[in-house]
């Protein structure tokens, strides 16, 4: 139990360290950095490495944005396994990501109830 928290902390923290390196060393904007990480997640899943990482680190691997690329690829691959090449395309559209739906929903709700404050 506690070891799961520690592993989530370490793995999640390390993925963020990679992000910080992209910020500070490679001088990328947040948009570039997050896009790169999402693509990295998709590629890792293609190599079959991301699911084991989730088994290993739990939320440490599902909470960083890399898991978004993973879940998209995973959906496409699952369909492809069943229906071949066509499955890749249909799989893309079948994938649901709770991250996107939740962000859209809560984003809209937020726009109803909040105003931007804009002070440090």
């Amino acid at each position, binding site marked *: 139990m506690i070891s799961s928290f520690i592993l989530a902390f370490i793995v999640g923290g390390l993925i963020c360290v990679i*992000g910080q*390196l992209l*910020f500070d060393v490679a001088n990328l904007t947040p948009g570039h950095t997050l896009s790169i990480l999402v693509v990295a997640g998709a590629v890792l*899943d293609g190599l079959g490495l991301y699911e084991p990482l989730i088994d290993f680190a739990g939320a440490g691997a599902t909470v960083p944005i890399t898991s978004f690329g993973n879940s998209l690829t995973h959906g496409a691959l699952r369909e492809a396994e069943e229906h*071949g090449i066509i499955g890749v395309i249909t799989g893309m559209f079948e994938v649901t990501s709770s991250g996107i739906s939740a962000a859209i929903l809560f*984003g809209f709700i937020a726009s109803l109830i*909040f105003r931007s404050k804009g002070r440090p």
Partner: protein
Amino acid sequence: MDQKTYSQLEQKMSPKVPLAGNLIRAFLTGGLICAIGQGIMYFYMYFFDFTEKTAGNPTVATLIFIVMLLTGFGKYKKIAQFGGAGSAVPVTGFGNAMISSAIEHRTEGYVLGVGGNMFKLAGSVIVFGVFAAFVVALIKTILVKFGVVGW
């Protein structure tokens, strides 16, 4: 002073980003967010019928709900100033990007403002995520077809 000399001077004089500190802060912030995510995951697994795999979805949704409150009350940008990538890389950063855009463009109306601008920052993540997933899945499917790799 020509451009070259100036850019050397600029390199020399501009304060450097505190890299070591930033990395440590990103590690701590990102790690903490993930550990909180782990706690939420255990909550869903323990009290509801979610397995390790399926608990991911409600966990992410819960985290984004928390981010909505933090963003709305103006706290998330303070966390971000401290944590840097530690707050941007977790799905909370993605949520913050969408929610802050939605709040910000509220003044332009719900359709053109909120609807049209919500994906202004987060859109690239979705675009590249979907495209990368497509390419990766395609390549893998072809490789499997030719028997190079297995599923």
